């Protein structure tokens, strides 16, 4: 499994066009090294599901990818730019092309939901007349149109998570980082959020890096697609996969990529550690 080259193993040619590319990334803190040589890459429109136990470094990986943290060594390239060596100033420009959904939401708690979502449009100097309809549209998209005037503290946890997604995607970034978007939510709300991510992928074609502790999330993304014609989420039919999107799994363990491959490969893997995830 680990040794056998996966179906999506990278040829050098492919990796050149990768949207996100990690090579031998390491980061550590006083307690020790957390990421010890992480390498992977994401192709355009691909969804990478980053699985790992709590504390395995998923959040760190995402923050490094977004340039919010600097790796101790190794290189990170996003959209062809070397994030791991850019100055904060250059990073600010690049980050406008990526959305980040924080594990805890990280909504601006003194701004209303509408202002939170509009924040990025104001930053990008979008026309004032254009902002309001776009905010309404994206809030409708996450089915929270009625909450525009409320403060984040007046929402439930699941609603906050959805506002956070709305805020991250309001300017239609080509890349979205989702940090444990379903952590601590009930199965039904989790499903709503995964559906949302599915729709974003299938409607806008975003490349996504999704950290999660729940394997179901990954399988839902792999096996369902959003049908724009009927506006419904449907199970993929086996013969032809309607969505061009590819879902791949990465499993982080002890600071390294322990497994990389498609959902089928993960299911077929006869590895005691991965089996524990499947339960």
């Amino acid at each position, binding site marked *: 499994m680990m040794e056998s080259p996966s179906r999506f193993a990278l040829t050098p040619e492919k990796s050149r066009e990768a949207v996100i590319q990690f090579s031998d990334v390491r980061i550590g803190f006083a307690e020790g090294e957390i990421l010890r040589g992480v390498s992977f890459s994401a192709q355009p429109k691909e969804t990478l599901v980053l699985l790992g136990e709590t504390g395995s470094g998923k959040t760190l990986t995402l*923050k490094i990818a*977004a340039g*919010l943290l600097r790796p101790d060594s190794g290189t990170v390239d996003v959209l062809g730019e070397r994030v791991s060596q850019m100055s*904060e*100033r250059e*990073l*600010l*420009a690049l*980050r*406008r092309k*990526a*959305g*980040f959904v*924080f594990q*805890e939401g*990280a*909504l*601006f*708690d003194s701004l209303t939901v509408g202002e939170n979502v509009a*924040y*990025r449009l104001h*930053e*990008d100097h979008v026309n004032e007349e254009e902002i309001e309809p776009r905010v309404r549209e994206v809030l409708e998209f996450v089915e929270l149109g009625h909450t525009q005037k409320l403060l984040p503290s007046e929402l439930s946890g699941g609603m906050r998570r959805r506002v956070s997604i709305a*805020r991250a995607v309001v300017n239609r970034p080509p890349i979205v980082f989702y940090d444990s978007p379903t952590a601590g939510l009930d199965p039904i709300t989790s499903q709503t959020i995964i559906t949302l991510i599915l729709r974003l992928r299938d409607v806008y074609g975003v490349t996504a890096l999704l950290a999660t502790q729940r394997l179901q999330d990954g399988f839902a993304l792999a096996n369902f697609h959003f049908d724009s014609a009927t506006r419904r989420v449907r199970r993929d039919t086996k013969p032809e996969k309607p969505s061009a999107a590819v879902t791949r799994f990465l499993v982080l363990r002890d600071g390294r990529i322990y497994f990389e491959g498609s959902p089928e490969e993960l299911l077929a893997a006869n590895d005691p550690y991965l089996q524990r995830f499947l339960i």
Partner: protein
Amino acid sequence: MAETPLQDTQPQAGSPETPSVVEVLVDAAKTNIQKVQEYSKLSFRSLANLATSPRYMQDTLAQMDDIGVGSLPIVLLSGFFIGAVMVLQTGAQFERFGQSSLTGDVVAIALVRELGPSITGLLVAGRCASGIASELGSMLVTEQVDAMRAMGTDPSRKLVSPRVLATLITLPLLTTISVFVGLVGGMVASVFSLRLDATAFWERAIAVLQFSDVMQGLSKSVVFGFILATVGCYQGLNVRGGTQGVGRATTQAVVVSSVLIIVADTFLTKIALFFADKVF
């Protein structure tokens, strides 16, 4: 104390990890030097940011409202009573020599040069350095600062510069108001306790003031404003350890900015007196 399994954190005498005194001191010096360096960087950036866009004028205005207008009540109240108490304290001394009309001179000079800027600086530090530190600290621990960075906003532009600029503008204004109200307070006190003529007090107080005194007072208030805003921002953006850390940073912001204001006051007084002779 009874031996319990929980007592496993007893320091082991002579264990190889025990650092030497020199090591501890060197470490402490290193961290402190690093802090000063980071603080200087933040202070410099807060001003340098103003030279280029984006500038966040809306946030600056909001901060001016919060820091300036919000501090008005305490500045007015304390200014009035400080002027009054100055008259009561000095008036009694002058009365012994039958020179109670000199009270106005002393109170005016003391308020304009020294008490106005420093008391206003300390009061606003107590109110706003703490406010800034706790606000930015809470934003930091709830990842709102990271969220800003993730959306392409430079926190030093969005959060630090508006607060520094707003304080730089409003503190001299507050100081001016405080001095004026202090003189009014002094006048009231001298009329009622020293039986002085109100106009006489006022005329003497204004006549004794020179341009250099006003410059000294205003330049002090600009420096104090810069200190309290940058220290507040620095403490807030360097919170370690969650909510408790925010509390610590808030306290630290007030303590450090107050001490720095008093220390800076001494040096500024020396410099101002030097220039008063040479320039004005």
